[in-house]
């Protein structure tokens, strides 16, 4: 089974993209996503029954509700007098009956307000509990730092289009809180293995397991060993994580903590598409090689790999040349990366770029005139740098949109299928196909070239019978209530950012 397409199918069937338009999940969801990766672990949600119920369905799992979620079931009395007794009872029961290797105690907003000393209780109970007790500490209330997206955009706007983004510390993200707890409460000092790294297993996109397997194989050829995939590891592996000489991470806050405690430096892959293509691959592995002191070996492997796949890439470039591609996107911030990935890395000549903005973009992200100009400057910079002669059209009227589409042979428009109505071949969204080995990259390029051979467009698509919102896909234009709910949520959320 192809993991990329299977992930795409199964996650696509989940309603979470839709739900994200009208709300965000509580941070416990991120915590459970992390703990779900750890074998033989049980989580105790220290809150009322509703939290223990609905959070079973809100983690980023591909299959159904999570199983190993217990709940203290805090009730009226516990809110007034504290829930310590219940917590002690449930921990003892789980340890006795389920024999987990680790028990995670996950606070909720209720326990954060009543402020029971969960950590103290766990420490006191640990000698009598076989499982390792791990207490997640809330870094913020309810959901991660609510100004995070604005801070990230602001930082990104100040970067030129070649700079790697390094922000995004995601304070209070439930996932990171678990990682911090593993660093602080589970990991133990180890003698460093100079050629071992840890790789964080979090949001590597569709087909993430295969990507990391192949990364591991490539690293092995460079003489570099993966000490642990984190948090997808058992108790012993997590304990021994500090053996690694480097962490390769998607979230840096916990990695900073680990660097401070165990002296383990890290390499932060904040935006995957910034590590795309032959240049991205080389930069990634050379950085790792340099940090581990094995740059020459690393470069030798990279040279050989590049040489091996270049003919395949050249073949695809020949096929792309002379064709007319149009990129349709909503994203200001990603567009420079989009241009680089298509135009520069793949050799896909872009003749048009349609930027269809969120009408409330400036309002939602507090973008002032200076920042707006910076964002445009990044786009223009990327076009100049990567030799992109596309015509950039922002917020086109319907007739303008039609003209642009008519002037293009292929549309590249990510996940929004509304453009299928124009009858032009649609090349599926590409940016999530960031891979970390050369064979995979060659496969991705070949897959794209293969789209050029697709004969005709389906002429009776059911999805053309309705109109998806150009910005807030998958909402539909005629679903007034849901669009109102989306706007209401956005307004209430902005109130929290003052």
């Amino acid at each position, binding site marked *: 089974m192809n993991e990329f397409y299977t992930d795409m199918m199964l996650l696509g069937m989940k*309603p*979470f993209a*839709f*739900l994200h338009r*009208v*709300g*965000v*999940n*509580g*941070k*416990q*969801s991120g915590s459970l996503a992390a703990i779900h990766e750890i074998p033989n672990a049980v989580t105790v949600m220290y*809150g*009322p*029954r*509703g*939290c*223990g*119920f*609905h*959070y*079973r*369905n*809100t983690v980023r799992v591909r*299959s*159904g*509700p999570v*199983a190993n*979620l*217990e*709940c*203290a*079931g805090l*009730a*009226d009395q*516990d*809110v007034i007098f504290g829930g310590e007794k219940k917590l002690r009872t*449930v921990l003892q029961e789980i340890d006795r009956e389920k024999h987990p290797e680790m028990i995670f105690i996950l606070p909720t*907003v*209720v326990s954060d*307000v*009543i402020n029971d000393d969960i950590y103290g209780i766990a420490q006191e109970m640990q000698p009598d509990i076989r499982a390792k007790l791990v207490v997640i500490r809330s870094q*913020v*209330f*309810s*959901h991660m730092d609510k100004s995070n997206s604005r801070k990230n955009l602001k930082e990104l706007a100040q970067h030129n289009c070649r700079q790697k983004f390094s922000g995004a510390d995601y304070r209070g993200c439930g996932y990171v809180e678990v990682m911090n707890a593993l660093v602080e409460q589970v990991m133990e000092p180890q003698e460093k293995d100079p050629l071992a790294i840890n790789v964080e297993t979090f949001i590597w996109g569709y087909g993430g397991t295969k990507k990391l397997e192949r990364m591991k194989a490539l690293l092995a050829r460079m003489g570099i060993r993966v000490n642990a995939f984190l948090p997808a590891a058992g108790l012993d592996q997590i304990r021994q994580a500090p053996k690694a000489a480097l962490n390769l991470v998607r979230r840096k806050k916990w990695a900073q903590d680990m660097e401070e405690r165990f002296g383990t430096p890290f390499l932060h892959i904040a935006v995957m598409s910034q590590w795309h293509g032959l240049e991205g691959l080389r930069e990634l592995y050379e950085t790792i090689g340099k940090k581990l002191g094995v740059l020459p070996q690393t470069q030798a492997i990279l040279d050989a790999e590049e040489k091996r796949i270049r003919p395949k890439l050249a073949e695809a470039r020949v096929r792309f040349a002379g064709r007319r591609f149009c990129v349709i996107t909503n994203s200001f911030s990603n567009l420079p990366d989009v241009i680089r990935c298509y135009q520069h890395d793949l050799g896909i000549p872009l003749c048009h770029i349609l930027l269809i903005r969120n009408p409330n973009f400036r309002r939602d992200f507090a973008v002032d005139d200076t920042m707006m100009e910076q964002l445009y400057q990044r786009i223009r910079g990327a076009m100049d740098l990567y030799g992109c002669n596309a015509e950039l059209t922002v917020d086109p009227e319907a007739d303008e949109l039609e003209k642009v589409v008519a002037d293009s042979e292929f549309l590249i428009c990510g996940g929004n299928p509304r453009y299928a109505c124009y009858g032009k071949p649609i090349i599926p969204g590409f940016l999530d196909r960031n891979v970390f080995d050369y064979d995979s990259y060659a496969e991705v390029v070949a897959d794209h070239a293969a789209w050029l051979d697709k004969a005709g467009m389906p002429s009776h698509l059911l999805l053309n019978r309705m109109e998806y919102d150009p910005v807030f896909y998958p909402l*539909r234009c005629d*679903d007034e*209530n*849901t669009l*109102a*709910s*989306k706007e*209401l*949520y956005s*307004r*209430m*959320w902005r*109130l*929290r950012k003052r």
Partner: protein
Amino acid sequence: MKPMSGCALIGAARALSGIRDAVVLQHSVVGCHWGSLAESMLQQPDNFRQASTIVYEENVIRGGVELISQGLSNIVELYPHVNAIFVISGCIPNMIGDDVESAIARWQEENPGRCVFYISAPGYAGHEGDGIDRALMALLPLMENRAKELNKKTTNSDNTKEDSVMFASVPENLTPRLPCGEETATLPKVNLLGLTASDPYSINDLKYLRQIFAGRLEIVCALQQCSVEEISRMGQVDLNIVFGRGRKLAEQMQKQFDVPYICCDYPYGIQGMIHFLEQMETILAVDFSDIKKQITVRADILVKNSAMYLTTLYQLTAALVGDSAHLSGMQRFLQDELGMEVMIEMDVDIEDQNRLEKELENSRAVLLMGSSYQAELADRLSQPLVRYIYPVVDEVCLTEQPIIGEEGTAYLIQQIVNASMRIRYKTDGVFHELRKMTSNS
């Protein structure tokens, strides 16, 4: 504990999710809003009418009542057709003592003519069933207003009880917006209580019931899919039909509006539906004999189609998980019509999934009837699972398939048979376990 149902807040949000011209404003943290939507959205994916005030850490210190007026003002601006707004407060506002009622009252003073109701539903104060009851009781002022209007017309006096202690006031100007005159229709009128829009198949079942009732009974209000206007007319019916949940509201309506009620099993199966129709015939003096005949004729066809499976289903051992709206009806159907042995029966609001797991492991039950939340357990035990109650989060129904009556009977049998056939059982060889034992030794 591993709860099989949610908290009072989730229950309240569910109870109100079927009111098409109402918006729910949850005064709580983001997770409650997300969680309640995530559990129910597959049943009604194209009509979100819910938002959150997004209570955050600063509100724990400074209070969060100012969020109420901001939320309400945004709602009236964004949903021009809204006829009622329900504010449900969750754990944190109740813990910090937010005076939500006063905040609503102040906003209503500044925004006269708006219909806002308040339901206090902290998650620590009850299960989903409690929350559903709280939300249903909050509908009473709407009915009272209508009753007042009618009384004014007939007796020119207002003797309606004023006891809505926990409810925000209902503006008098709501009633003029409502069409009058339906009360003069001649058909007996009923309300359906107990189902929510998030109960799987509930909207299809309502369509099916309307078809069956056509020309005989008028469903004035069915809370799984209704309007504010229909709710306001609930007090003018001949009978409240209560499917498990909503009994408190029915009792109160009997006191206030002299509307009798009957508690019924949800009409699963052939006999379940016939019995249900007979109850209506007895109480409301209507005649369903031709419908019952049709059901019986179609039942004969169904029986022939499923003949080879009915023998296997007979005396099959099953475990049944359900909520108070569905449990007894399904138990009766499985036992009385399919002849199954229901070995375990659990109410999701009362029982715990850990207990279910223990009992299931030690029982003879081989079929599990419940929700998506039993899927992992069913997989682990290689048992077929039929999802028939909320939450169903791993299966959709895009057709108009009901689950009650004769059509529902065929569908349920099909679901049970298909779920059983799909189990990957002994795929490594019938005596695979023995092989393992030999190699281990």
